[in-house]
């Protein structure tokens, strides 16, 4: 790519709005080094939004997925057990057991043993 010969480099900018919020990717920009990238990010893109912190990452330092690695992201649709919706039937089951629990036979069977 001949990036050594290029004056400008690509930087990815992350920021957060408050000290306790998570960093979010905002945009990318061109700058000759990370110090320049920082002031450019601040001056140009964060004038209106409150900002608590900024991260600058040179794009060449990001581990990115190649086409082959992206093939590892596919999942089969047979994993309802990993999501709460896979347990939707439980509500119905609970109701059934609760009803059984309070039927006449059950209540009468309490007689004598309870005061």
């Amino acid at each position, binding site marked *: 790519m001949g990036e050594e010969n290029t004056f400008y480099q690509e930087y990815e900018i992350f920021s957060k709005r408050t000290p306790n919020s998570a960093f979010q990717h905002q945009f990318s920009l061109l700058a000759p080094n990370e110090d320049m990238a920082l002031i450019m990010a601040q001056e140009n893109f964060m004038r209106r939004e409150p900002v608590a912190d900024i991260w600058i990452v040179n794009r060449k330092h990001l581990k990115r997925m190649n086409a082959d690695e992206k093939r590892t992201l596919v999942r089969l649709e*047979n994993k309802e057990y990993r999501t709460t919706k896979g347990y939707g039937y439980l509500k119905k089951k609970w109701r059934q057991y609760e009803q059984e629990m309070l039927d006449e036979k059950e209540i009468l069977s309490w007689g004598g043993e309870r005061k």
Partner: protein
Amino acid sequence: MNSDGNLMDPEYKEAVISLLFQLADDDFLYSFRGSEWLGLAPHIEADIAFSSISQDSMGHAAMYYKLLEELGAGNADDLAHYRPAPERRNSILTERVNGQGYYMETPHFDWAYAVARSYFYTQAKKVRIDSLCESTYKPLSEVAVKMRMELYYHKLHWDTWFKQLLSSTDEAKKKMEDAIKLVIDDFGDVFSYGKQKQQIESFGLIGSEEELKAGWKENIEPLFASLQLKVPAIPDHPVKNGRIGEHTRDLEEGLSTLSEVCSADITAVW
């Protein structure tokens, strides 16, 4: 050929069933042993990742058992849980315990063994799945295409662990080399089709044992070359051949553990 068991040539059907039991039992036992690592892997993210891979593999086993059910071999859950050891057709590699001790009491499992077994097993599964995508039995080639999607991730995961540990400290390298030896000693039946070899191959259900072995070797050679290691040779004669129902004691112990809950009340509805 379609999945209507009644219209199928009986010999063809028998061969399909025989192969399906080998594939199903392999993934079932492999994922059971994998699930025994829950909470024990040396690193929290590795723990979750291994568990996910075990769940995926259990899903693959379920797909094979379902195909068996469609062929009238029995209910899928029953086939998974209630068949005794002599009826199992998995490779002995997949049934081996994870190391010393038991999951419930003082497990001293061997992570190097887990990585080596998973690496070689997944590489073997890769050549089998690639071949199954061309199977003459359509329902089988269809599930193989699906499984192949998830196998990319399993393979990347185990390739990475395998490579990292073998290019790490001398101690890690020694542990890995010991583990590789254990795994390869049990590898003799992985590419065997047992007594139905002739039929399974001539009906074109999957490539021949020799083709798959050669494919496996070819696939792993570059990694071994980069580590300056020789690809270990698969034994000509398996110690025991799981494809004809020969198994170790580890399988009986494993089956009684994995079916303990469902055997406690076989009429329960889940």
